[in-house]
């Protein structure tokens, strides 16, 4: 099963103290008020994803990507180039398939700069 998470806020089942500390060391952050985790550092992201996956019972973890053109979130599973991509899920910004094909939206994006 694939679990899609949002890098800015995602919930995990309650973990013990040691696991929590290791998650923090791997670059996660925890918002006590809202009870949600987020990704703070990307340097150990693969290990962080493995840790999250094991907490979620071994399910495959996928983070949502932000489209640099339209700003919408989308998962890598929607991408046509997933087989050729060496950086699946990481980093968290890309161009969504709709924007890549939509010339009008692209020209609007260029006009911003």
């Amino acid at each position, binding site marked *: 099963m694939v679990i899609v998470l949002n890098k800015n806020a995602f919930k995990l089942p309650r973990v013990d103290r040691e696991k929590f500390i290791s998650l923090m060391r791997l670059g996660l952050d925890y918002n006590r008020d809202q009870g949600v985790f987020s990704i703070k550092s990307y340097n150990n992201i693969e290990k962080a994803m493995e840790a999250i996956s094991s907490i979620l019972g071994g399910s495959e973890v996928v983070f949502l990507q932000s489209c640099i053109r339209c700003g919408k979130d989308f998962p890598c599973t929607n991408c046509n180039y997933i087989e050729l991509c060496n950086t699946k899920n990481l*980093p968290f910004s*890309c*161009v969504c398939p709709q924007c*890549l*094909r939509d010339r009008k939206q692209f020209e609007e994006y260029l006009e911003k700069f």
Partner: protein
Amino acid sequence: MQRNELLWVEKYRPKKIQDVVGNEEAKELFVEWLKNKRHTKKAVLLYGPPGVGKTALVNAAANEFGFTIIEMNASDTRSEKAVNAVAKPATSYVALDNFSGSTKSSGNLLFLDEVDGIAGNEDRGGVAAILKIVEESLVPVILAANDPNIDKLRPLKKVCLLVRFQQVRIPLIIALLQKICLLEHVHAEFEALERIAQNSRGDVRSAINDLQSLSETNRTLTLQDTVVLTSRNKDVSMDETLRGFFSAKSVAEASSLLSYSSVDYDDFLLSVSDNLPRRYMDPGELAAAYDFVSQADVFRGRIGTENWHLLKYFYNALAKAAAVNPQSYKPFEFISPPIRVMTLFWTKSRRSMLDAICSKIGVQCHVSKETAKEDFVPYIKEILIKQKKSPLIAYFKFTPEEVDFLIKMSRF
């Protein structure tokens, strides 16, 4: 050079941070660090595979925030003395421009590129000197490396903010190519851009070069035009490349073959050099060809690991060596792999044996391996020839194989 003759990789080199393609998180982290005057970490280490925009980001950020870059890269010697000579003055003083109020200068920025390449005797003490400069610097210090996991960089990693760069993705490369096509008035089919981006394997530079070479003559680009690109992914052997290279009818043909071949540039240069006497029988032609190979070697040195915009000059000089007299070409058997590479391979066991002997001498006599080789080995050899059971054998703890090797060895 006219503006329209510029290489597109140069023309569209990022001037602003937002022009750098991909790695949004890394860009954000780096900019946040650069803007913050009270850094918790005194330096930043940008790391990731080559061609993903580390150097481009530093240059764009310096341009945007008005820093003057003082740069040292792998082509400079980075010993303690050299680092101190360049970096210390640059990091010890805050620029006077800062106080004039008339300019937008933010002062100096020290950029040490390819710090993982600091190695050997030439760069002795380099890492320690960099560490000291990081601790004492009054200006931002930025380091860049491809592989941050090597042992010698461990002390630097402790004092640096680590910023990781990832390979640029295909959709982002397509987006960049679309932008260039729009600005250059090239009407490109989406599938053609897709093919170029896939073929580049995450290397933005090669994608832009391919786009320029394919759309230079015609301002429309179709999928059919990109058929030639497939050859870059094919595993063409050194022999095939040499055959095509030496049988080329013109400089353009040889140059084009080189640009689409994936053989190692350094090995190819050595192979061309080895095979030239078989290709040109006329001494005048041979001399002219070696002159071009020598020019290509100079450009290869200047390219180093980052000045890839000079690659076309390397190709051009090497291609001229192939086309000194195209009419005189007759098929011949190639020397491959390069003689130098093979010599190193053949002598590896002998060199490692001599190295072990010199280490043993060095330990007992408190000298370097080099001194042991130059000043001790010749005399020990003479002693062993005359006295095969010399007490020196026990003193240096030589094995019977090492004694035999020393007695029989002919040259050092």
